[in-house]
């Protein structure tokens, strides 16, 4: 039978606040274990949480960016369960009155609806000695630095139709969070985590199939692979006449499969109830309005602008917008007067290739908007050839410099002096009389040969337009 997958994603995004969700501890990643803790975030007896307003502001911004309804009042709830990384024996979360409801993300003209987004605190981190997990380890250590870091859980509707679309959704969501500057979106550091709910149903059916929740997805590639695997697994089950079991499964990167989680570990009754240590939050509408005024141009709008105003293709616009840093630099260069097409080609081609080879981030580059503008003008003015321009670009990526300096240092200035070039063209024609003879007999293709020889002779610095003009003139003369 033909099946179609139905996919929903739950994303946990660390909100970029200076301090934790309910105390004043810093949130920076990578500090020595248990150095960013206080009595509140390690759950000492008698202490109380206080809501970090910056967390709420971040959550509202996300809601605005995803076009959610921002609740007029919202409250926190306790999610009760025991685990050593959870110091209070409960997590402060939001259960039935999340801060954001509804909303959507558009990817390639398809709307993926957002179900809800709610605030909660992260747990600490366990380090196990002698085994990969708690079970079988000699002992485990707890680092509460991450405990209490604010999270926004963003839950999509099951609107995603393929593993590829899941990846696109995550890319776009992460992009949005980066654009509005509320999340680093760093999967390795765990600041952007994802679980996937996957089910399949016969094509055209309206009833949802039984779903599996997949956890332990540490990269976008893992998300795509795990969902693909899960679709195939469920297809095999249904084709053999069996039924899919509703369960939580863990993705294993090394064997490329999902495995059921111990049933005991998921048999939780979280006993949610309103957090009595916090009063319900009334979200001031004027605050929301203020925050909405601070919202930057979002990826979707920016992409459309590149297509409409700068005549970039969807794919080119997508690639540039995918990196906020790159896109911002591109915008600034174009604003200075650089050619959008040239800049887009330079960024998507040689720049991204350079980043891949050097394993660097865009932010590491020395390139400035002024560099791009100067380079674009140099090409336009004929000061440098487009071939040489790529060489200049590579230098600009690696170290802080000026376009003119690099052109001079590498001797890449284009020769446009007609007198000098006339000599070079004549020399090539004189040195190849047989080819001139061929041209004379009507083999016009030989013209390419001359062009190449002249470029070789001038080390690529000759202005091609002038060469062409001179060739026209001198070859005709030679004919006579």
């Amino acid at each position: 039978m033909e099946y179609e997958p139905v996919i929903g994603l739950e994303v946990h995004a660390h909100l970029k606040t200076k301090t934790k969700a309910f105390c004043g501890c810093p949130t920076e990643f990578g500090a020595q274990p248990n150095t960013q803790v206080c009595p509140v975030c390690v759950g000492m007896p008698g202490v109380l949480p206080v809501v970090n307003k910056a967390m709420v502001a971040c959550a509202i911004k996300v809601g605005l960016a995803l076009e959610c309804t921002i609740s007029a009042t919202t409250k926190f709830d306790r999610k009760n369960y025991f685990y050593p990384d959870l110091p209070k024996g409960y997590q402060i979360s939001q259960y039935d009155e999340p801060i954001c409801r509804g909303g959507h993300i558009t990817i390639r003209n398809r709307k993926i609806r957002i179900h809800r987004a709610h605030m909660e605190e992260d747990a600490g981190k366990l380090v196990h000695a002698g085994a990969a997990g708690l079970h079988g380890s000699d002992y485990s250590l707890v680092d509460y630095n991450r405990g209490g870091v604010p999270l926004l859980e963003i839950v999509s509707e099951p609107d995603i139709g393929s593993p590829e679309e899941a990846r696109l959704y995550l890319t776009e969501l992460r992009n949005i969070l980066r654009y509005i500057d509320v999340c680093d979106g760093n999967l390795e550091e765990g600041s952007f985590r994802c679980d996937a709910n996957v089910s399949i149903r016969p094509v055209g059916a309206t009833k949802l199939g039984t779903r599996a929740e997949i956890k332990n997805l540490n990269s976008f590639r893992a998300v795509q692979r795990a969902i693909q695997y899960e679709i195939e697994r469920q297809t095999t089950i249904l084709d053999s006449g069996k039924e899919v079991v509703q369960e939580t499964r863990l993705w294993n990167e090394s064997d490329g499969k999902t495995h059921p989680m111990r049933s005991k570990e998921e048999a939780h009754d979280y006993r949610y109830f309103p957090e009595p240590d916090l009063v319900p939050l009334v979200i001031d509408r004027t605050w929301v309005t203020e925050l909405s005024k601070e919202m930057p141009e979002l990826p979707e709008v920016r992409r459309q602008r590149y297509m409409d105003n700068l005549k970039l293709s969807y794919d080119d616009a997508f690639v540039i917008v995918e990196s906020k840093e790159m896109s911002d630099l591109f915008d600034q260069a174009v604003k200075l007067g650089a050619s959008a097409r040239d800049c887009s080609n330079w960024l998507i081609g040689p720049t991204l290739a350079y980043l891949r080879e050097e394993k660097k981030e865009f932010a590491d580059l020395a390139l400035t908007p002024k560099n791009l503008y100067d380079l674009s003008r140099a090409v336009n003015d004929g000061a440098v050839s487009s071939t040489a321009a790529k060489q200049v670009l590579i230098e600009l990526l690696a170290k802080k410099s000026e376009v003119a300096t690099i052109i001079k240092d590498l001797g890449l200035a284009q020769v446009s002096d007609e007198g000098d070039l006339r000599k070079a063209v004549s020399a090539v024609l004189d040195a190849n009389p047989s080819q001139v003879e061929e041209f004379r007999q009507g083999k016009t293709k030989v013209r390419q040969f001359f062009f190449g020889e002249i470029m070789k002779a001038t080390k690529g610095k000759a202005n091609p337009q002038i060469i062409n003009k001179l060739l026209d003139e001198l070859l005709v003369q030679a004919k006579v």
Partner: protein
Amino acid sequence: MTLLGKSISEIHKLLTSKETSATELAQAHLSYIEKSDHLTHAFLCLTKDLALKQATEIDKLISAKKELPPLAGIPLAVKDVLCVESYPATCGSKILEGFKPIYNATSVNLLFDAGAICVGKTNCDEFAMGSSNENSAYAKVTNPWNHNYVPGGSSGGSAASVAAGFATIALGTDTGGSVRQPASLCGVVGMKPTYGLVSRFGLIALASSLDHVGPFTRTVEDTIRTLAVMAKPDTHDSTSVPQKMRTANCDMVALLNDLPKITNLKNVKIGVIEELSGEGNEKSVQKALDLAIETLKTLGAKIDKVSLPKVKYALPVYYILNPAEASSNLARYDGVKYGARDKSAQDLLSMYLSTRQSFIGSEPKRRIMLGTYVLSSGYYDAYYKKAQRVRRLLTEEFNDIFKSYDLVICPTSPTTAFKFGDRTDDPLKMYMADVASIPADLAGLPAISIPCGFDENNMPIGLQFMAAPLADRKVLEAAYAFEKATDYTKFSPMLQKYESAKT
């Protein structure tokens, strides 16, 4: 000259006139406790070093002729569920044995800043769960009036320490009557202010939406002096009443200035709660209530009977909400971070189970199970949610009454102190001890218990005044006028015995 059993203003005079020093005062109290507390077990630990250090600071102020803060040199006892930096906070439980907080409770901090001198941490029912102090994992506090009787609970150690004269102020906590009921049984003043008036920061939670910090003192005036220092907004407690909501009706400093003017209760409308008077009370208690009503009338108050039908649901509602919150609040005692741990456990689950089995007492266990049950999926709506609804209805009923009445009154406890073991086999009977004090916790009302007589065994009886939320001033004014008009404010025989043995 004796230095024991003094009121705040008496101590203030002794210090400013240099008749004694803060250090002498502290030492006198500490040695009295050391010599006599084997009779009462009111203290779990003495904070002698802290007391002497604090006293030295006050003495420095005196010798430098600096102005003394409002509670300079006042001996203070603190219930063991409130944090005092660097001293044990066990909550009367074995599971917190060895735990020393690195912070002061806000209430404690404010009293320290005002010059109070901490003599020790007082015994209580484990995690403040109990009405007789028999649930302490360490020792049973006895009633200073008669050591065969319970002091009430859960703040029994604090009530006893004021009744015995160990301290001028004792801090307690009141979740379901735990300040007022022991105050009543020990014959002292015990006040539970409006919910949120005193910060809960540093109060080791039993049930967060019901927990209140409240003082025990011998006189109403001393309660007002304590609250004038302690009832402040706190940014560390989100449920603390913000400054802009603190109107004149809960302004303790203003009340203190107005005290000399309070000589009668003319035009004060008082309702006697029908559901909590009459047959449900012991004869001696009912008689004391009737007498108190006459006194209030003499003072000029207008008295009617009022009916609050929802009050009869207070106890069942309380025993759903309290365990629900407690089950979650006590989850952090898991052996992972602090306090006791069963070190023989071989894996995580058995560490959790055996730690909690071995070190948590039977009443907390009962409430954890009850609470876990009422919050479970499938039961939440029927129990927790319904109880919250009834709590709201009860609150509305009170609000309606306070449209027509300034105050409502009833006995704080339907009985006087009972003997050890009388109720330990029957949790329901034990829970009944708080039937009259729980409604004010559920509705967050200000409520006070003050002495209003003695039974045939010379055990104290308490009268309770309640008012609308944030009308704390009303209960204190009425209690103050009643106290002036009567003669029930006495020390237990302990202090006299100690003083006469000394001479």
